[in-house]
């Protein structure tokens, strides 16, 4: 059995300072409802509120925060101290403005106006008269809407997907569950109905698609981190010039091993999950002579072989 450590005091205080005015607004709330709203367990909620009910400028009961908790509900009495929430912190204000700016790219004009009004009100409350200096660009390809609608309506979609590994385009039947963007690419997460397994497809590699009939809803659970399934990846270790680390910034799961010493002076040892030989070829070409594979042994010569393969194209002209 794993045992959870104590919750940090700062987080408990932060939560209390927003819960108390929220509770004051309502008077009486069920503990289950309140715990759910604030994303905590009923036990943690009861512990924090019970402690808050013992706080005030003195231990005179008339000075204590006026709330009490019974088995089912929390009750708030006379407001004394925390009538309004603490002003937004810099991270909170940034997060709201950035989320609204980003979502404005995605959600269409029907909520765009409301979002803009909401951000203007938040900014005014913060004493900020300009939020236009923060811009989030999320280019949304045309296909995004089709896949979002297919996911919302549980429709299957037939796609023609181009694989960079094989260079071939293959037709697949999928049931989309989520469309998301990360690091400059859009992806659709779906159940691949041909193999009955979860797959993620990069949208710019889907050459064509057609939305079909509605089917039963697919639940794939939350998205897992990239390369979470180690059975589908190979751990590759390379040594490289740290000045070229920027090439690897776009790839998830890259780790610098600070303890391991590279053979070449001033180089570093880096490990990364690799999904296919073709994928590693692309990375090695981009790194050029600034990196070498250390393991696995089968790929130690891959950079040279790949350089020769590409170089051969330039021989005949």
């Amino acid at each position, binding site marked *: 059995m794993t045992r959870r450590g104590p919750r940090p005091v700062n987080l408990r205080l932060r939560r209390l300072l927003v819960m108390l005015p929220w509770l004051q607004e309502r008077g009486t709330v069920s503990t289950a409802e309140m715990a759910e709203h604030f994303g905590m367990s009923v036990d943690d909620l009861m512990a924090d509120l019970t402690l808050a009910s013992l706080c005030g400028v003195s231990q005179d009961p008339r000075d204590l925060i006026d709330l009490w908790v019974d088995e089912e509900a929390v009750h708030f009495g006379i407001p004394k101290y925390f009538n309004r929430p603490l002003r937004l912190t810099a991270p909170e204000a940034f997060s709201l403005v950035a989320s609204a700016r980003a979502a404005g790219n995605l959600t269409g004009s029907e909520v765009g106006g409301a979002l803009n009004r909401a951000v203007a*009100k938040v900014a005014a409350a913060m004493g900020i008269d300009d939020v236009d200096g923060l811009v989030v660009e999320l280019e949304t390809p045309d296909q995004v809407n089709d896949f979002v609608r297919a996911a919302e309506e549980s429709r299957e979609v037939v796609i023609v997907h181009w694989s*960079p590994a094989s260079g071939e385009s293959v037709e697949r039947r999928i049931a989309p569950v989520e469309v998301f963007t990360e690091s400059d690419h859009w992806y659709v997460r779906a159940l691949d109905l041909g193999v009955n397994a979860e797959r993620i497809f990069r949208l710019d590699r889907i050459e064509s698609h057609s939305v079909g009939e509605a089917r039963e809803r697919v639940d794939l659970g939350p998205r897992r981190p990239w390369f979470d399934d180690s059975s589908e990846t190979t751990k590759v270790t390379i040594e490289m010039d740290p000045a070229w680390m920027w090439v690897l910034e776009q790839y998830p799961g890259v780790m610098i091993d600070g303890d391991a010493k590279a053979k070449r002076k001033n180089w570093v040892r880096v490990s990364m999950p690799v999904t296919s030989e073709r994928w590693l070829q692309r990375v090695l070409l981009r790194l050029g002579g600034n990196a070498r594979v250390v393991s696995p042994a089968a790929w130690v010569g891959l950079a040279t072989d790949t350089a020769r393969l590409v170089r051969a194209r330039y021989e005949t002209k």
Partner: protein
Amino acid sequence: MHQLERVTNLLTLLLSARRHVTFDEIRNELRGQYPDNLVAARAAFERDKSLLRDEGIPIDSVVLGGDQAGMTGYRILRSEYELGDIDLDPDEAAALRVAVSTIRMGQSWGVEALWKVDLESMSDRGEGVSPVIAANLPVDPRLPFLHRSLATRCVVSFEYNGKSREVQPYGLLARDGWWYLVGHERNIDDLRTFRVDRISGEVEVGAGGAYDIPADFDVTAVFPADPKLLPDNVDVGADVAEVLVDASDVGVVLNLYGPEAVLSERGDGSMVFAIPCSNVRAFDQWLLGFVERAEVLAPPLLREHVIDWLDSMEARA
């Protein structure tokens, strides 16, 4: 006594104080809550104060006169502490909730901000439905402070590429999975763009209202969307390359550049495209992603540059 209880009591005391109160007065009011030993009590008080300030609570401190001359007094002004009434309409609150649940930054800042600005409604978290569209935005702990500095016109100082910079922030832009700060760098008296994750260490923030942003400034127009259009220090004698792409891979290039980029089509289905190459390094990274299925035809200097790159990989073997 638990620190949360003591710090909550301290907060209620400072919020209720009608004048600045000294450490001795605080210790007297919160009798028995700080250690008897003066040094230990002072250390505990400093920890509490620091915790409150880290949570964004504005503790005002002044050096007192009169019979308390030289002592420091503390209080929290309610007007500085409390978030003003934002008064979101239901559609505005709903739009913000959608934005926060759609845009993921790997932090709880957005949800915590929503709890504060939208006291009236219950959140949607209990309904158990995740939005089918999501965007992951990268986040950097310095972004909120750069954002606040931008909004309140504070000059910021930081280290970048080994040099100290003093910058008047003009805009923050999220593009292609990275955040950029664009601003007027004071010592070179010119506009500069900084990738936020490459700023070293902390950002120091100066006083507010220190500068104006030119009325015609547009952060999105400062640098081109396609990195291959950014000039760099490799001159290949042309800004556009002719690239032959095999039939297997033309679809992905057509998706990206459209049919207007096609210069010619060959009998085997391969195509010659016109691709920007002002930034040769960015061009290399794009081209080499095709491994052996694409080839630079012109300009000759760029073709030679690619051949040199491949030869250097073989030479390092």
